[in-house]
């Protein structure tokens, strides 16, 4: 069984299954979890993290939906083949939305487009 190194903060306000998902994603992107690696069973992960099995199930379901893991009935869950395109796309989208919200904020503060572009170029160089 893979040692997952997933750390959950029970006291955090962030829902636990979100924490699980984030940690998983992180490990997959970092490649400490590789393609076809078997995931621990729902219950054994639940036991390790001291959370209910349903919570872990939800996290696994969400991960499966985003294509990061694959569940084979009767065999368990495995890390999905690393889809480079998917990853690239996801990352692109992430940056896109962050830039969008920054631009929105800038407009809100009254910064002109020109000033914003200048700022952007400055940061890119530095």
């Amino acid at each position: 069984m893979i040692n997952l190194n997933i750390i959950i903060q029970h006291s955090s306000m962030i829902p636990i299954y979100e924490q699980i998902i984030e940690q998983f994603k992180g490990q997959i992107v970092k490649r400490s979890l590789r393609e076809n690696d078997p995931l621990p069973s729902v219950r054994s992960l639940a036991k390790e993290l001291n959370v209910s099995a349903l919570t872990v199930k939800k996290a696994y379901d969400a991960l499966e939906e985003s294509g990061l893991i694959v569940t084979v009935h009767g065999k368990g869950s495995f890390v999905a083949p690393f889809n480079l395109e998917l990853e690239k796309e996801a990352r692109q989208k992430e940056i896109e939305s962050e830039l969008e919200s920054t631009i929105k904020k800038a407009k809100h503060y009254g910064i002109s487009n020109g000033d914003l572009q200048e700022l952007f170029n400055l940061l890119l160089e530095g």
Partner: protein
Amino acid sequence: MLEVKDLKKKYNNFQLDCSFRIEEDQVVGLVGRNGVGKTTLFRSILGLLRPDEGEINLFGRSVAHLTEADKARIGVTFPHSFFSEQLTIAEIKQVMIATYSAQFNAAEFDQKCNRLQLPLDKKVKNFSTGMQTKLKLLLAMSHEADFLLLDEPTSGLDVIVRNEILGMLQDYLDQKNNRSVLISSHISSDLEQLCDFIILIDDGKIILQEETDNLLNHYGILKVSEQEYSSLEQEFILAAKKRSYGYACLTNERRYYQENYPKIAIEKGSIDEVLMLLAKGEEQ
């Protein structure tokens, strides 16, 4: 697996009135103060009591007509009821083998007794409460039962042993994917770790039925002053009780209040807090 439909039973000082279901591969925790009907509910499910109204179906059959084979699929623990304490574990083992034959896993049972340091040849009456509790749970898990009904299974155990027991329970559930548990306890932290669903009972009635997940992640306790309370959006407030500082309010949409009232003190929902706010007993 278990279906309780409109169960009504008048008892000493409460009226049991509840409905709920437990599917396969679910762990459900039952929480409530002493004397609200938890043990009565267990006894009704096990056919030791007859309800005034309603029906209870276990394994698809009415509990009034459970066959021996059905009963062999159940594992039970009660806090105050067990085999005669004149018996030793070795003797109880003999009874179990005669009762469950091949289903009783003697080798594994011995192993676990060893691990939990339970002596095989001492009379149970000479065991400490903790040891008796461990034994009861081990027996419930010793014969491949599909459904465990555990009434206060961890009372009297210190935190380290409790964790070990809960671990064993998790392992037991991990062995097959159709096992379910109904567990009642006062120790909320145990339930929060183990249970998929929580049922809160007060005065014989179910006051909350919720995924543990939701309870911990979306429920919250708002601690507000009188002033803040009066200007608070009431739509997501489930209950509020007066406190020395003003009010403690229960919400199931913690995020809403986190986002819209960034200045209020908000705490994560925990089973204890939720119970205290929903149960009767203090002015609202």
